[in-house]
């Protein structure tokens, strides 16, 4: 076990003070953060999406910004704008909220496609071009976007090609009765978010990111990943399957999850745990299948069911 991995239990314990009953989802988000992939949380209102993003930012002592997406939000509201300074007789660049380490893009499907693509381009490139000048984003730059799956009125659903920019799409879901009672009790006097303190610094996060790259992946595991991804292309009801980028993302995320579980190699369980979150949002189902009730998550579950697991 390498030294940086020793930090993981501390981070998890810190986060679990705030987010209870979501251990599996928490680990996946942490895996994505460490493996350098962005996360789309798709869930009902009030399930803890924002709290999770804030807690993560606080735990790693990173800079945190939040953008509430609305239909009239402009790309410059995210990227930043140059303002003429009469005193200095020059344009001064005022960086937008994207110049941060952890960005929470709330209700990302409410903004116009133009604004959405400004964010998504930044996520893909790791840099932004404003007025001809290219600026690199922070190397820890990590986006947690949220969207509300039940509302369609006044929203612009993200196109499949742009969904591909997110490494994971997760939903937290409701916790069980005991957990929910515990949440109510915990917040009687004040929010536990106020209690937590940073336990790792930016340099340690960079070390963890390096450690993810060193997690070993056997030939058999790579083959298993590719088999699952390829199977989505032939699955019935699928118009557009997952591409090689999905194979890359699934491998990388599995490495991240292995590190979160304090292992230095990937096992089939990691791949299976992440196949749904990594692959489902990249599939385009044909209308006929959609109409008869098929879902992308269901297709991935079928693929996992029919593929023999390495044992």
């Amino acid at each position: 076990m390498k030294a940086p991995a020793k930090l993981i239990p501390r981070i998890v314990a810190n986060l679990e003070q705030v987010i209870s009953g979501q251990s599996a989802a928490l680990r996946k988000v942490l895996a994505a953060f460490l493996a350098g992939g962005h996360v789309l949380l798709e869930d009902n209102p009030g399930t803890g999406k924002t709290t999770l993003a804030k807690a993560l930012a606080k735990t790693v002592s990173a800079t945190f910004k939040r953008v509430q997406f609305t239909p009239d939000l402009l790309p410059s509201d995210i990227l930043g704008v140059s303002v003429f300074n009469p005193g200095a007789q020059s344009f001064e660049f005022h960086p937008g909220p994207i110049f941060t380490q952890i960005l929470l893009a709330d209700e990302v499907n409410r903004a116009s496609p133009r604004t959405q693509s400004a964010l998504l381009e930044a996520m893909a490139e790791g840099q932004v071009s404003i007025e001809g000048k290219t600026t690199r984003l922070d190397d820890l730059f990590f986006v947690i976007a949220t969207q509300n799956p039940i509302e369609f009125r006044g929203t612009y659903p993200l196109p499949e090609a742009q969904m591909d920019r997110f490494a994971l799409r997760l939903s937290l879901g409701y916790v069980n009765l005991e957990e929910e009672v515990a949440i109510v009790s915990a917040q009687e006097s004040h929010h536990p978010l106020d209690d937590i303190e940073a336990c790792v610094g930016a340099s340690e996060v960079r070390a963890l990111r390096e450690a993810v790259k060193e997690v070993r992946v056997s030939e058999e595991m790579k083959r298993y990943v590719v088999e699952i991804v390829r199977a989505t292309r032939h699955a019935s009801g699928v118009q557009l399957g997952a591409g090689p980028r999905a194979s890359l993302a699934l491998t990388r995320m599995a490495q991240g999850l292995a590190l979160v579980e304090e292992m230095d190699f990937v096992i089939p369980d990691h791949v299976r745990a992440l196949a749904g979150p990594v692959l489902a949002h990249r599939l385009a189902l044909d209308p006929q299948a959609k109409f008869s009730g098929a879902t992308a998550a269901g297709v991935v579950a079928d693929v996992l069911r029919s593929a023999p697991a390495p044992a």
Partner: protein
Amino acid sequence: MNTPALLLGAAILFWGWHSGHWAIAVGCALAFEAARFVPRRWEFTSDRLNRISDFSAVLAALAGVWLYFTLGNPQAIVQFFIWLPIVFLPLALSQAYGTHEDIEIGVIFRSLRRARRRTPMRFNMGYAYFALWIIAASAANRRDASFEAGLIVLAAWALWQARPRSRPLAVWLVLVPLAGGIGYAGQVALHDLQLWIEGNAPEWLRGEGGANTNPYRADTDIGAIGELKQSERIVLRVRPEAKLERPLLLHRASYDTYTGLRWLAANAAFAPVAQAGSAGTWPLKEQPGEVQAVQKLAIIEQSGHVNPVLSLPSGSIRIEGLAASEMKRNALGAVQVEHRPGYVPYGVSFVPGAAVAAAPSPADVAVPRREAEILNEIAGALRLKGMDARAALAAVEGYFAENFTYSTYQPRTAAGQGNATAIADFLQRTRSGHCEYFATATVLLLRSAGIPARYATGFSVQEWSELERAYVARERHAHSWTRAWVDGAWRDVDTTPATWELAEAKQAPWWSRAADLWSWLRLRFFELQPREGETPLAWFALGAAALAWTAWRLFGKPARAKREARASIAAPADSPGRDSAFYRVESHLVERGWQRARNETPREWLARIGPYAGQLRERGELAALLAFHYRLRFDPAGLTLAERDQFSARVDDWLKRVTCKP
């Protein structure tokens, strides 16, 4: 075959016992059981297996069609199931003697053949084929308890191998007979349900009723309330020499004794009729000396029952071209032949007016007491007493034609009014009914006038079918009329108003035309079949075509085979850690009944069975062993030699601890 030794053979012998085909059963059983001792194996490629499977499917389809058209339902279905395992014999044998333990699923299911799977799903036919033999035995079922008993024994035998080792044996011993008992009760209940449905289902669902005639007894619908319904099914096809001027009555049976609602043939013992001259010719009467026109009819009768009663015109003297083993007739003119169900083609020569049936007996003038009063009253009003027989007939015909109407519907108030019988009620009050009322009333009225008369049943032939190029008689054309003894001969007297045919034709349902077409097709197919002495050319042609196609499928080299060969991908290189000691832990748990699903990782598997496996002690140690296993299998760095030894030792230790009783 993955079935335990002798099980499949036992199932086949069980089939032989029930179906009676002992020789075939013993041969098949030996062929399958010998596979356990014969070391020789043959290599069948999946392509070859596909063709064998197609051959079986074609065989099944041909057998189904042939059985349906020769035997008709339901015998065809029963025979089809009895012979189904034989149809799949080539495929099952190729698995038993093939080098592979199992076959690809696509061999059985065509639709799965083209699916591009790198590791096709494989399937061992053993138990499926075992079940097929049991199903076939059930079709041949001798309808006693031996089938149920045998079924339970064979099923228990098969299940014994798969009993869960993780549960006490006593539970299994209780549950198997319980399941057998529930199965038996369910089967009885299902049978009752079928009887109930058949009793309540529309007529066309009920299968081949045919129009059966009992020469001893005719139960009439006299006195029944409500609508009289009859089927549109064609039962007779008649080709006369010339066009029919008026409806032709084809007689089946006559009855002399009326017992109220039912006619009986009291004095009518059957006597055999000897075959004479050329084969299939049955003389009924010496041809009359005087030169009278002998007419001929060609008839095809469709019978749903064994030993049908033939439909013959009045004055029949000879039956020709009828291949039956025996023929007998009674004094009242009914002619019955020994014949299996299906089509009965024959020709008949007849001289209208010739007396064939025996002279009248005292029973032919008996009038039942209950109706005597009203009959005498009407006979008196018509002044029939002492009238000449011909005149009396005319008077009776006139009486019914003027005062009575045809109806298939009897209102509720009609029957059972006071003491009046249904016939008395018909004569006095309703004056409306169907042919059975008219025929019965006419017989009784003639008898009360002293004229011997009988009640005759049969068919009224009058509908010309362009499709068949013949006259057809449907079940609803079944008719009854009167035979009166006039001038030393029996004469047919039909007093039912001629509108009856029109009234009943209106009841024809919308699908009757399609049913007619289907019936016509079946007859054409029947006519294709070879008769004695003919060369079955059509069948040779059909058989040759089927064989040629099968041969091409089996031995030809279709292009698709090459494409498939190119599309197949090389199997993955062997992965490390295939000799992991953890597999011993796994097989130990599998023996206890905790099978790991193919798509489950070992960790998921242990998490799933953990809460249930009572004897899954040493849980912590098991997790440690799994960690070793995962490192060996999935960590490219692997285990050191020392660690491997340690891993193996700990597995041995774990196995020792969990196998010895606490």
